[in-house]
């Protein structure tokens, strides 16, 4: 408990920024998805840190993280399936080449 809360928050911000950078700048859609996972993890760290430091007796923070896990898994499953499907027809999953609606 000797670690100040702000350390965790700054760490999470750094991780979030890294993930956001990947989302904005990577061309490959799978790399973009990895960036999103980084961001979700950063959010989880924040949730758990706030739970531990501000309301340790109320477990809502931890329960929220489990729901974030669920959403992250669903997002990864559908996102990757989408990429596989796009790759099958377009032979590329670079996001800046997939810019029209007809597949």
């Amino acid at each position, binding site marked *: 408990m000797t670690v100040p809360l702000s350390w965790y928050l*700054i*760490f999470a911000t750094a991780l979030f920024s*890294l993930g956001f950078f990947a989302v904005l*700048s990577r061309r*490959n859609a*799978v790399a973009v*998805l990895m960036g999103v996972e980084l961001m979700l993890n950063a959010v989880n760290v924040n949730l758990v840190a706030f739970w531990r430091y501000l309301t340790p007796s109320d477990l809502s923070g931890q329960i929220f993280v*489990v729901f974030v896990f669920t959403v992250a898994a*669903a997002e990864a499953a559908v996102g*990757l399936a989408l990429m596989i499907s796009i790759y099958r027809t377009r032979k590329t999953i670079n996001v800046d080449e997939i810019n029209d609606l007809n597949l």
Partner: protein
Amino acid sequence: MVGQILFIIIAAFTLLMGLGTVVARNLFHAALFLVGVFFGIAALFILLEAEFLAMAQIIIYIGAIATLIVFAIMLSKGMMGREAGAYNKQWYFAGGAMILFFGLLSWLLVKMPFAAANASAPDDAIQQIGSGFVGHYVVPFEVASVLLLVALVGAIMLARERN
């Protein structure tokens, strides 16, 4: 004191791995770096006394999501090797914006006062989480299962090879 040193070691490790994820040109290496990030975050959860979440993090993120990502990489030929031009044209702009974002937010966080409660974590945390799922958070709990169902159906529809 020991906690602070541990935190710095784990945080540095995790951020290094995160940097690796972002800059690795080879997607498989990026996925491995991502596994490192997940592991580091599980260690941070232990430091925060959330043991259930630490294990769930490893089971779900490393056991399931990272495996899913690796499988998806394998399914698209040519993504396994080194790829040219990993970044798009606006990467320097994105990098600058992110550094600005990080600087601004951490400045705010340092300034912001938080009233930390000096209580210890409950001993029956797992039990409380379990009764939370079927008690106060029952609607998200059921919606989560519907979400998983929808994700399963949608992903099967998308990924199946039509003959």
